[in-house]
């Protein structure tokens, strides 16, 4: 037994695997097109800088993500880009990376306050959703009548979901004379829950005519529910429900083009990914980097569709 272990030790100590810089990419989920586009863009950026990358997807399990990052560390990666499950479960991951002395960049979700060392690249969720909903509000005012609003909120453990809801709430408050929020549907970033929630909210409040979703990937659920209630109509139709979304995915792009969607808050995926990889490289090479890189994003709507669609990532899928 001891001999065997000894043999193993000899066998394995002479193993060395390293020539190129290796990056570990860990994603909490690939459930939505946004994450898919992100991981594709990250990989593209890595290739651009001639980096080797390892990827891992945790499918919504924080514990699994923790184990996957630990495996990255075991394999001796030089840097880690991670889209974390939520603001807090990232903290032990940051600690583990710091302990191993491996730089880590957090993608798209702001970690809760902690003493660790890391770079965060994040969209300005509050501002983007505030501006998007403001645009919707102006549309509502133009129509003149009173509006009953519904919002689909995300997983409240996720800072992004909270910021987007706050953006929505603050924007709606500016239009409190014509918009009344009658339904808040918790979706936990889950399409089935969203469908059930929207269907039932429409059953309880048949006069809802203003819907904002905190993520575009919930649109199929919304459309399905609206169709069942016979409320899905193009812009200009008297029964059109004002629709707004967030992310800028392909579905949203199509809906914009087909004139169903009024406005969409877009995160600049390419900017975010590029910045994350660059920041990580700088860290690996020992350079100082800003701790927080903010993606300002933009609002796309029927008015600026032509001009902005090129920079909307969803238009490319």
């Amino acid at each position, binding site marked *: 037994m001891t001999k065997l272990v000894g043999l193993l030790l000899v066998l394995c100590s002479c193993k060395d695997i390293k020539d190129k810089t290796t990056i570990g990419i860990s994603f909490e*989920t*690939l*459930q*939505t*097109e946004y*994450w*898919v586009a992100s991981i594709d863009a990250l990989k593209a950026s890595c290739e651009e800088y001639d980096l080797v990358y390892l990827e891992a*997807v945790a*499918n*919504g399990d924080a514990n699994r993500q923790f184990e996957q990052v630990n495996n990255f560390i075991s394999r001796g990666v030089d840097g880690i880009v991670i889209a974390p499950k939520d603001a807090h479960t990232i903290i032990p991951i940051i600690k583990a990376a710091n302990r191993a002395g491996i730089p880590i960049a957090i993608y798209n979700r702001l970690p809760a306050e902690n003493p660790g060392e890391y770079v965060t690249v994040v969209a300005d969720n509050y501002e983007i959703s505030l501006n998007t909903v403001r645009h919707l509000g102006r549309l509502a005012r133009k129509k003149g009548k009173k509006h009953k609003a519904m919002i689909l909120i995300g997983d409240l453990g996720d800072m992004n979901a909270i910021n987007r809801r706050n953006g929505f709430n603050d924007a709606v408050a500016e239009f409190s004379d014509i918009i009344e929020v009658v339904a808040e549907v*918790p979706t936990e970033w*889950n*399409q*089935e*829950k969203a*469908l*059930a*929630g929207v*269907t*039932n909210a429409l*059953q*309880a409040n048949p006069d809802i005519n203003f819907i904002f979703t905190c993520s575009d*990937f919930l649109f*199929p*659920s919304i*459309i*399905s529910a609206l*169709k*069942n209630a016979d409320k899905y109509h193009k812009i200009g139709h008297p029964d059109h429900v004002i629709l707004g979304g967030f992310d800028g995915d392909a*579905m949203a792009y199509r809906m914009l083009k087909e004139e169903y969607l009024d406005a969409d808050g877009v995160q600049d995926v390419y900017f975010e990914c590029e910045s994350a990889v660059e920041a990580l490289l700088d860290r690996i090479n020992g350079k100082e980097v800003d701790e927080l890189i903010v993606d300002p994003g933009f609002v796309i709507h029927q008015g600026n569709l032509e001009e902005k669609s090129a920079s909307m990532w969803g238009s490319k899928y």
Partner: protein
Amino acid sequence: MNKTTQRILNNSTLVLFAIVLLTFSILSHHFFSFQNFFNILVQASSLAIIATGMTFVLLTAGIDLSVGSIMFLAGVISGKLVVAGFPLWMACTLVLVIGVLFGLINGAFIFKAKVIPFIVTLATFYVGRGLGLFISETRAVNLPESFLKIGSTKFFGVPAPIIVMTIVIIAGHLVLTKTIFGKHLYAVGHDEVKSRKAGIPVDGLLLKVYIICGFCAALGGLVAIAQLGAISPTFGLQSEFMAIAASVLGGTSLFGGRGSIFPGTLIGVLLIQSIQNGLVMVNADPYLYTVITGGVIFLIVLIDSIRHLQQKKLKRLGIN
């Protein structure tokens, strides 16, 4: 124990169903409406189809934990195909074929390798979901409009899901009550050894049962997808538990040989769906749904077990 309590115990699901309907009707004026009952039926259709298949398996004293994964895998593959431009009918057929295949695998392991159903289907549960996630790359598959159209089509004013559900339930009911296959099913569930002695082809029967369950799972999945318009990586999770719960609520015994699809399983399904729907209607905390559904199922199993205990006691003492 007097007669009325005994009778209530014997029909606990029906009593509870009545209580649920009454409570929600009082609490919300939206609940007790024709439109809403239609809603409940449409929402229940997928679960009812899956639970029908599950009832077949439970009647043979087996269990199929893999139905949720079958739904998911079949959905993902067909979704991918449709998105890639394959015709709709082909995708739908393929879904059903996959369901049958999975049932075949389950059944083969159970009757050939003699591994107990719980372990076999637990393994295929993970294999199926893993394959589905592999094919979908854990991404959500958004389906084209044409798929959604099936879900909202109406024949003579009746939505397609309800029609599919009705056909499946009637077919299942007929098979169970009017064919020799159905009778053999009950016999095998009661006692496998005796069934073999009586010359019943037990192995072939078990295989068929798991195939039926796989087929129903795939069909139920299809009905759900046609309403959702997208398949997320969590699609079908816990469906197997809901299906088992619905069957058990409807009076099907986990020990086999006892139960019915109509009215049994159908009532179980409607009870679960009414609770879910009613909770929305009264605007209950959405996180409370699982707690209440779980509580109701626990209650029914409890009542059933107490009744069982009493009967056993009476029987042993020679009263009956």
